[in-house]
């Protein structure tokens, strides 16, 4: 587990892998994710090499001639951060084999938004995982194409307003549920995969450590609000993700080579309605005559997902599908 004192040292020595001066919006949760991932890696003695997919985090942190990245960094395109990092990782193995470099501490971290992960980058991610590259993929999930102005993605939840499937007189907006991305990744089997949230830094750090130590592909999906397009106050992103966990909207769990584990089990849960009504992006939904029906469906869905997770945890306990990639 990254030691809090080490983390403080990095902060006090101003030794940030991801430094200040970026131009993400006030209150954006993406930089927290970038920071924690790289700080955790450094405090565990690794030297992170980072790849970022096109999206808010990328465009706001590397406006030439400036960069917020104090560690080696590559952006290639929108849909290919996993393939790009897989190539860098292959180069690392090759150059080590050929004794052209002598450094065992490098760890590759790919970071993508939900568009770059659930949608356009899914094939690249799947290929890189299937090939078993040693890298950690971090998804900052803000549930939409936010960089380009809140277009719908495969992660946008039903009822949330977006500019490419807006709620209008003749349309009820997006009705499809979001993809269960961690299940998709877990379907690759030889992988470590987990969910995380910005309100639970230690849970994230622990998972990050697991991911870094896992010899093969690892994936962490972090619910990371876009305060602007979720229509919430700037300072409420973290609070909102806390509520997402407390309402079963975004359970915290992990999957390790077939074994499921729920990493946070709240004693009591709040109704999902509490989460939904906090987010301005659902205002139009809440005004619809069938709002309660839709909410009820969502409540049933999150209940079923939670029960399923507990059952999977029980079923797979000490029963890994594989012991190596």
């Amino acid at each position, binding site marked *: 587990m990254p030691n809090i004192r080490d983390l403080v040292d990095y902060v006090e020595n101003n030794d940030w892998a991801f430094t200040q001066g970026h131009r993400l919006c006030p209150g954006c949760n993406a930089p927290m994710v970038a920071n924690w991932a790289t700080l955790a890696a450094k405090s565990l003695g690794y030297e992170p090499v980072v790849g970022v997919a096109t999206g808010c985090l990328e465009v706001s942190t590397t406006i*030439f001639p400036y960069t917020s*990245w104090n560690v*080696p960094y590559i952006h290639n395109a929108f849909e*290919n951060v996993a393939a790009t990092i*897989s*190539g*860098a990782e292959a*180069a690392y193995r090759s150059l080590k084999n050929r004794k*052209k470099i002598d450094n065992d501490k*490098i760890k590759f971290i790919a970071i993508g938004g939900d568009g770059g992960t659930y949608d356009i980058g899914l094939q690249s991610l799947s290929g890189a995982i299937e090939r078993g590259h040693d890298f950690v993929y971090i998804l900052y999930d803000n549930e939409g194409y936010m960089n380009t102005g809140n277009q719908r993605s495969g992660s946008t939840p039903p009822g949330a307003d977006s500019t490419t499937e807006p709620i209008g007189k003749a349309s009820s907006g997006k009705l499809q549920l979001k993809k269960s991305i961690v299940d998709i990744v877990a379907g690759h089997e030889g992988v470590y995969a987990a969910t995380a949230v910005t309100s639970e830094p230690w849970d994230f750090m622990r998972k990050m450590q697991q991911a870094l130590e896992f010899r093969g592909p690892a994936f962490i999906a972090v619910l990371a609000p876009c305060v602007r397009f979720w229509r919430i106050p700037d300072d409420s992103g973290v609070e909102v993700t806390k509520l997402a966990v407390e309402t079963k909207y975004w359970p915290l769990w992990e999957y390790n080579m077939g074994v499921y584990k729920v990493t946070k089990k709240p004693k009591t849960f709040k109704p999902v309605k509490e989460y939904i009504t906090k987010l301005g992006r659902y205002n139009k939904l809440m005004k619809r005559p069938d709002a309660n029906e839709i909410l009820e469906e969502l409540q049933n869905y999150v209940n079923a997902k939670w029960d399923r997770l507990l059952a999977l945890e029980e079923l797979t306990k000490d029963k890994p599908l594989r012991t190596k990639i």
Partner: protein
Amino acid sequence: MPVKLTVTGAHAVAQAMRQINPDVVAAYPITPQTPVVEYYATFVADGMVDTILVPVESEHSAMSAVVGAAAAGARTMTATAANGLALMIEIVYIAASYRLPIIMPLVNRALSGPLNIHCDHSDAMLARDSGWIQFFTENHQEAYDFTIIATKLAEKENVLLPAMVNLDGFITSHGVESFEMLDDEVVKEFVGTWNPKYSLLDTENPVTFGPVDLFDYYFEHHRQQEEAMNNAYEELPKVFEEFAKISGRKYDFLDLYKTDDADYIMVVMNSTASTAKYVVDELREEGKKVGLIKPQVFTPFPKKEFQKALNGRKGVVILDRAMSFGKEAPLYSLIKSALYEVPSRPKLGSYIYGLGGRNTSPKMIRQAFEDAFNDNLVADEQRYLGLRE
């Protein structure tokens, strides 16, 4: 000592790759490039090379992975054809602007649709403005040689550009022919080791690859790409010279065949040049003053060399194995534009041939030459060889 191998062109290219032994190869199979990847995979499997092969799930990922690997300081290669190139084209441009000297044999095939797996140059023309150096090769020997030459040129510090080596799908890639393979050691020494200035793996000196480059710098960076391409043009004669020393084969921007006293010249790329040389020989026997130019380098376009070679000729027929719908064919338009500045411009003819692998016979080549002798060339009238109208 060099050895003669009688193999397919795909095998010849794979042998060049084996001798270069890049750090990383990432590729995805597509006819007619597939055997290049298969041979290489066999070399890896048999321990003949210690390259890390990344068997990606698509060409888009092949180019993405070699960009990642090259940025990490590796010498990298991939290979593709037609639809594979089209799928990766977004990253083909990115590779050039990141100044990564990736080497890619392109086994020329028609770019769909409808689906056609046979040879033409529509795939290469898709990438003509991507910022890659583009070589064209007539046969196995050239495909092999230029894979080695490309590696040497691409990595020059004042160049740092990716390069593709075009060879004709099936005709060259699958046809069996002899070529002379240099010694492994000679090739190894010729290409040397690749020591990039910047690498993702240099954690002591972190750099940001691929930042957002807005209106205040992007333009200058693209101007630098042009400079690099000019440098490639300047460096090429030196590389050709060095290659001649190890191989005895002296290349130039243009392969000039019997052009010295020729009144009528044909320009054609890749394997059809062999057919055209045969026709030139026949016509010479009939007393016709004809010659052939086969460009080996398409990008940077050897404009000066064309001016010198074509100034004062009576007629020039240019054969394109690709179309540029609604505009002049690619090779024709570049040559025509090069001739704008020469004092004595020849008459020009534009001929499209061989699309989708349509066979191009000596008779068709002869017809284009005959149009030239019979003073039957009309500038910008696009004609078609072997087409049923």
